[in-house]
């Protein structure tokens, strides 16, 4: 009998395990090296894409969700001339779930070469718990952290019509949410999603092969497939056809097909995997596609 009671007690007490934290795969840093980072990255750009040091600004931001009593300090990088944010178009780059800004530096730097070098400003942050940012990542914190960056940009003179939201992988969640809902510091004018996921439930169903409810393992509410329905701004979707992590068919296509706004374009990249779109496509082709979308729509 004691054994049965112990068993039941374990079950009851332990019924709070969820996979939510597995969304985040952050790494801590003691300092940012950006261009001098020698760790693993998806690709490295040559000197043609170099950004002058004077255009690279590393700083901290206070991030605070509406129901939090105090702010958490997060780190940000702005690539561009801060004094020209009043007139520049800025790409808000929301990075993926892995590592930190050093890992994504090459990607952000590449975007800073869209059309011409430093034609657009690029803003990137490390979410809570990533790199040197304090705190612990969570779904709610993702939105608060990106909003902290938007607040900073707004204070520097950025307006809605010059804000372009770009999300990669996990970063597609705050990018889509903020573009879909006009209750953040700025309301983006355009949305670009690279290798987006549809929802946590699709991940569970892809993994299990069954039509299993996502809530059986996760409380994550992230649902780009639904949020995208509210987006009216022009939408650019790019996805590797060989994405071996977030299937182009069950994730990206769902997001793209559910978009009901004014303009959308898709870029299915043959041969590209989850992290290799830029290298498979070629940097200049990638930048042309991104730049044409931003400038034309």
């Amino acid at each position: 009998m004691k054994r049965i009671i112990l068993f039941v007690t374990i079950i009851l007490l332990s019924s709070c395990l969820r996979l939510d934290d597995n969304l985040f795969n952050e790494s801590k840093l003691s300092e940012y090296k950006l261009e001098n980072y020698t760790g693993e990255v998806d690709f490295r750009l040559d000197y043609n894409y170099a950004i002058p040091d004077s255009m690279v600004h590393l700083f901290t931001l206070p991030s605070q969700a509406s129901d939090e009593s105090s702010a958490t300090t997060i780190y940000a990088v702005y690539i561009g001339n801060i004094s020209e944010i009043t007139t520049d178009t800025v790409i808000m780059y929301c990075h993926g779930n892995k590592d930190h800004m050093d890992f994504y530096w090459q990607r952000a730097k590449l975007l800073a070469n869209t059309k011409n070098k430093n034609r657009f400003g690029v803003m990137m942050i490390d979410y809570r718990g990533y790199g040197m940012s304090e705190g612990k990542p969570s779904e709610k914190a993702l939105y608060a952290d990106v909003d902290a960056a938007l607040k900073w940009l707004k204070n520097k003179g950025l307006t809605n019509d010059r804000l372009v939201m770009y999300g990669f992988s996990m970063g597609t969640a705050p990018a889509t949410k903020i573009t879909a809902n006009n209750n953040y510091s700025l309301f983006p004018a355009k949305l670009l999603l690279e290798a987006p996921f549809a929802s946590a439930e699709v991940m569970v169903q892809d993994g299990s092969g069954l039509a299993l409810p996502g809530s059986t393992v996760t409380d994550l509410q992230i649902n780009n497939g639904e949020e995208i329905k509210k987006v009216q701004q022009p939408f650019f979707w790019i996805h590797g056809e060989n994405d071996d992590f977030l299937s182009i068919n069950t994730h990206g296509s769902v997001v793209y097909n559910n978009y009901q706004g004014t303009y959308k374009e898709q870029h299915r990249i043959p041969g590209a995997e989850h992290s290799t779109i830029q290298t498979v496509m070629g940097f200049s082709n990638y930048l042309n596609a991104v730049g044409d979308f931003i400038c034309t729509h």
Partner: protein
Amino acid sequence: MYKRLFIAFCCLSIYSCAPSHFVKPLEKKQHAANVSLGGPLIKFGTATIPIPFITATYGYGIDSTLTGFASVNVTSALYGNVQLELGATKQLLKQKNYWPAVSFNPVVNFIYHDKNAYKIYPQLDLNAFWEYGKRKNFFYIGVDNWFELSSKKAFDLKQQNKWLVSSMIGHTFNGKKWNFNIEAKVIAPHLSNKDIVVDYQTPLRDKGAFGIYFGYTRKF
């Protein structure tokens, strides 16, 4: 994103969380409690490990050819789900020299998280087993069939996989009061394991998964 995501549970694993239950029926009026540990092999960091599913099962010999059983998936319970299996083992044929004994297990799998999240999966296992020696240890092989009843999944996408097949081979060491069981299972070899968040480690490369399970049964 990286492959750590959702690594612990979702997998091809809901339907591969346990080894076969009572391939050979219990004696009439015999009780048995079983605990099994194991699951599909996955890449976790640099190591290959089985997902550590724990299943607890109780069985009762209704007669010498029919055993009823109920299982609780303990790992699933840790995630706040009630995942139960209710089933029976019926022996159809006795062993004749090299011709194996044959049994089958109709099972109902039920997973419940809340009123908006629950599923029922019918399952049918077919087993063949060969007893040998004084202790009546036995080898077995089998086929495990899971059936997905839903025609749609998230975002109204078509549920492609309606019938999920796994095959297993195992051995049971038979004691007077206990059994020890080891089983290897080739899980859903007809399904691709590419383009998902889990790195399955299987000899079939980009198909299905490969599971290893250990079980201990106390008979009383």
